[in-house]
């Protein structure tokens, strides 16, 4: 320990001279990046519209999501109902708009839980090392071995069906993925010179983790989180399709597909809108994730 302290001291002693020659930090210009990367621009624009639609659903939806019109069941698209109506005579467009709230809420919740468990766990075991790392890594491997959706279905069954529980379950399946990435990154960063220097100055472990390790290790996690939003969205749709997620009469894209499938021979056009909504949203998250990956790691070329 004294040895590393000594090296850290001698290196930091030389630092002021080096500082003068360092170039000024590059400021990240968000709008310039977005303008240069059209795919990211389109994805972000689409997602912004979706977020607005979710927030302002009561204002923009032409009908209340559960308002039934029993005279107009499974109607084809028309002036009154742009995307037609479902088997209970509810307006498909309105349910689609309200469904966007559940989709975004579900994706954020699942990923949020994955981050809340996975990131601290990964940093902790990577930072402490030794047997803690050994045990922690085996736990991560053990949970990772499950097919994610099988684990999610099982955990949802235990917690009780419903959207929030289903997404806690999905987050539970995400956590080991993020913990593994975070652990690997922490192992790289914790041996960096600046961490050693800070240790030499007597920085506390908490300070080291929060100020030096976390900011420098988090980059791959940002990419992973963006891609996970797509996975979570697909999981929500799937679990709601199985009626383990969003419960009727609340609207969700997956649930809408389940009903549409029931009446597919009568009104096949009902299955398109929710499917495309899921596809486009997942695609937007994936595209954005890939763009951020390229942005953060200039050594990889796009496609």
């Amino acid at each position, binding site marked *: 320990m004294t040895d590393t302290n000594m090296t850290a001291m001698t290196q930091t002693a030389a630092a002021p001279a080096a500082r003068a020659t360092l170039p000024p930090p590059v400021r990240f210009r968000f709008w310039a990046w977005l303008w240069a990367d059209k795919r990211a621009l389109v994805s972000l624009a689409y997602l912004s519209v979706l977020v607005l639609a979710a927030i302002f659903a009561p204002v923009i939806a032409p009908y209340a999501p559960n308002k039934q019109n029993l005279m107009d069941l499974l109607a084809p698209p028309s002036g009154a109902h742009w995307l037609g109506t479902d088997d209970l005579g509810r307006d498909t467009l309105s349910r689609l708009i309200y469904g966007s709230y559940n989709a975004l809420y579900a994706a954020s919740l699942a990923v949020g839980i994955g981050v809340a468990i996975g990131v601290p766990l990964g940093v902790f075991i990577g930072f402490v090392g030794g047997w803690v790392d050994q045990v922690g890594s*085996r*736990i991560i*491997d*053990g*949970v990772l*071995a*499950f*097919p*994610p*959706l*099988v*684990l999610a*279905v*099982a*955990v*949802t*069954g*235990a*917690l*009780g*069906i419903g959207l929030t529980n289903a997404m806690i379950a999905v987050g539970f399946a995400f956590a080991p993925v993020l913990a593994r990435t975070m652990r690997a990154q922490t192992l790289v960063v914790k041996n960096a010179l600046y961490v050693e220097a800070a240790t030499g100055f007597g920085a506390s472990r908490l300070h080291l983790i929060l100020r030096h390790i976390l900011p420098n290790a988090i980059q791959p996690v940002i990419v992973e989180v963006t891609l996970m939003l*797509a996975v979570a969205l*697909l999981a929500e*749709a*799937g679990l709601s*399709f*199985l*009626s*383990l997620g969003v419960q009727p009469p609340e609207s969700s894209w*997956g649930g809408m*597909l389940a009903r*549409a*499938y029931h009446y*597919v*021979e009568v009104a*096949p056009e009902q*299955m398109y809108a*929710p*499917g495309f909504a*899921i*596809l486009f949203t*997942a*695609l937007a998250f*994936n*595209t954005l994730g890939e763009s951020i990956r390229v942005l953060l790691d200039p050594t990889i070329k796009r*496609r």
Partner: protein
Amino acid sequence: MMYGVPGMVAQRLMQLVPVMIVATFVVFSLVYMMPGDPAMMIAGDYATAERIAEIRQIYGFDRPMLVQYFFWLGNALQGDLGHSLFSNESVLRLILSRLPHTVLLVLYALVLGAALGIPLGILAATRQGTTLDKIITSVASLGVAVPNFWLGIILVTLFSLGYRWFPATGAVSVFEKPLESLYYATLPAVALSTGVVAVLARQVRSALLEVLGSQYIRTLRAKGLGSGAILWKHGLRNVAATMLTIAGLQVNRLFSSAVIIEAVFAIPGVGNLISYSALNKDFPVVQGVALVLVLVVILTNLLVDVLNATFDPRVAAST
């Protein structure tokens, strides 16, 4: 100390022990995630006090958790996964009768995915930057984002209800009528395979590009070796391990997606079994399916490692 492939297998098996312990513990502790008294939750709303006491005894809820775990694990190792709370059928027998449907579906999708994804990846890599390359990579992006079950619904609408080429739902036992079972599994396998196609195409493309851009390939090219010989003799041989590893990882995802695909096509596999049992709080069945599937995945990964080591002696030597 053993070397070579047997030594590697022995070492992998040793590494699997802690993973198995964690995985089985997760399955076991599912019961403890239930809010309130698990015995009452399992028994349902209208259960009699005797039924609750009986369940408490079946699960051994009165004993300390770790004792229960080893008790449960001991039973599971002997093939006793308990009985369904509804039909009272043996959980293991229930799963074994349904597992072939799911395994057939997953293998079928894997084969389809490899048969399409690998050539697409090679095509994209060898024609890097062309329109064809761009089309393939774009389609691959779609393949990752498309909800499999939606694709399944569309396939049913088009090819079963529309053209009537394929049956819309159901499955046939692979042991009784092998050919017909493949016919029944075709549409679900196609729906299931999109993710594999997309991931394999992308990964094969980038792995191959990396190999083709490496020093020794440049040397071979400089020595006048034709591009065909380079691709087939040197390029593909070096990405074979990557392909195998990625295909192995896809098995995990395929079992995931199969849960929903089996619902769309009404296939009586383990995916349908676990979602139905989760909806109905048939907990021993949920635990049983999760346990069997996690073991299948762990063994698949082991198989991939062994195959890699068999084909490439360096892998076995490096462990």
